[in-house]
């Protein structure tokens, strides 16, 4: 496995960083959206659901272009964030993370929402009758019972982030060391003569990472399920 070049390592570490940040950053957002969709009925709910799912069905290039328009230096949100907090997305690894987060969000929301919807809400009522205020109920009952779904959603989002290509390259281009993740690196290697060996090595690496993530999540999920398995 030491046959990896420095370029390869750069792309691998960048990919892991981008995917981790994308997953962690989208977790609270995904959780909040899933909770709102699972527990509340309000006008515009279907529209919100549709907007969240849009990146799943739109061409990734379109998502990337929309991100560029809104979060780019000259875009309304991008300019504001740059001014207020010095947060820049365009042509930075942070932009790659944002693109990955947006692409992975629908998968995360779906998974979390499913567990929330399948929960026995009377458990929350029971906690309430014992004196727990709603926020405490959420933290001690709702959230722990939703952990398997949260885990599944995070893994899906992480995997999606590792493989994200179209939106990323459209939004933040393909800059080695900054925005060139594994898929972009593989693509680049296939475009130059003699790059096949590098492309193959990186392909092998991404297979290994994906398998590892899947197996780890499977083991964790099994342990969690044993703990929170509800009885009938």
């Amino acid at each position: 496995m030491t046959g990896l070049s420095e370029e390869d390592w750069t792309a691998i570490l960048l990919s892991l960083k981008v995917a981790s940040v994308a997953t962690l950053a989208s977790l609270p957002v995904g959780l909040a959206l899933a909770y709102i969709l699972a527990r509340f009925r309000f006008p515009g709910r279907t529209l919100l659901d549709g907007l969240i799912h849009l990146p799943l069905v739109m061409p990734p290039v379109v998502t990337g272009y929309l991100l560029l328009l809104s979060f780019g230096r000259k875009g309304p949100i991008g300019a504001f964030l740059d001014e207020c907090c010095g947060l820049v997305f365009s042509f930075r690894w942070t932009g790659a993370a944002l693109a990955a987060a947006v692409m992975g969000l629908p998968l995360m929301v779906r998974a979390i929402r499913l567990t929330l919807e399948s929960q026995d809400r009377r458990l929350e009522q029971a906690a309430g009758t014992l004196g727990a205020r709603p926020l405490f109920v959420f933290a001690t009952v709702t959230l722990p019972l939703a952990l398997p779904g949260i885990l599944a959603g995070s893994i899906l989002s992480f995997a999606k982030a590792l493989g994200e290509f179209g939106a990323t390259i459209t939004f933040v281009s393909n800059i080695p060391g900054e925005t060139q993740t594994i898929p972009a690196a593989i693509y680049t290697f296939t475009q130059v003569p003699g790059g096949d060996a590098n492309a193959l090595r990186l392909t092998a690496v991404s297979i290994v990472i994906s398998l590892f993530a899947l197996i780890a999540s499977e083991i964790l999920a099994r342990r969690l399920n044993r703990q929170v398995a509800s009885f009938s």
Partner: protein
Amino acid sequence: MIEIDVGLARANFTLAVKFTAGEGVTALFGESGAGKSTVLHLVAGLLKPDRGRIVVNGTVFTDMAAGIFLPAHRRRIGYVFQDALLFPHLSVRQNLTYGRWFTKAEPNGITLDQVTELLGIGALLDRRPTTLSGGERQRVAIGRALLASPHVLLMDEPLAALDIDRKREIIPYIQRLRDELKLPILYVSHAIEEVARLADRVILMAQGQVKSDGPPQQVLSPKAGPGDDRFARASILTTTKPSYDPDYQLTQVSHPAGAITLAGRLLPQDGPIRVVIRATDVTIALSKPRELSIRTALRGKVSAISEPLGAVVMVEVELEGGEILAAAVTRKAVDELGLGEGDQVHCLVKSVSIDDRLMAIKD
């Protein structure tokens, strides 16, 4: 002290109840869909009434006219659900102490040790709810409710999901709660044996209304019975002086209309014993039978014969001593015996159909 006077429109009926309940067990009794559980939900704050007031120990929980609706977590009620609803991700101990988080300031609340002793769950503390039997779960659920130091205990058919053996396991614990804790307990049930055994007072509900209200013998007597379902009809007789025959393993108790023989052993008991007899277990004879396996024959006279429902007629017999016993018999039998009001009859009850499950021990 619970004071309720509320109204709520539901899909299939309009609930309108008004009653007060003090210490001891007040049973809300009636068929499914009568609105019993709805009343508990209203007291717990899980449901908002259209109008009315609910006051517990002087605290206004709900007063729709004044716009007061205290959320469930500020009501200090203990709610025991039919299916326990233990938190599956917490151990038994963590389940039990969950309510403690919010009542730490309570000076003289019941302790974990007292609760585990009272309910016999000391050995289960480190187990997970998924590994408990149904009866154990329900006991833990009761303990969890008690440890939140409630001012009133609401029990929503706590035994309905359990088989007969689990019921027998839990009933003595609920009796201890009733006798040892000075708590008002609202107990919802549609099982006459449970109500007869546990209740100090019964509120009979139908279609969202209170149909009658009083001590069990009075409310559960045949005339006020829960409808025309012959399998739901039962009578409660008050008996005294049990004696046990170890040879035959039979218990005999005294009643003004004759001795009643029961299968099994009744623990020595000084006070009166309530015996529940189902209408379908009673046979009517015009003369005292001989050469028959039946050991229990109660004397009385026919006080009412109901309109037939298909093949079945409900005959009410006023036993010597004044209590009423209902018997479900066929219309054909009534005609062939020529039964009429005022006839002297003997009511035969199979000993094996009453045992200590149907026995209500009170005071």
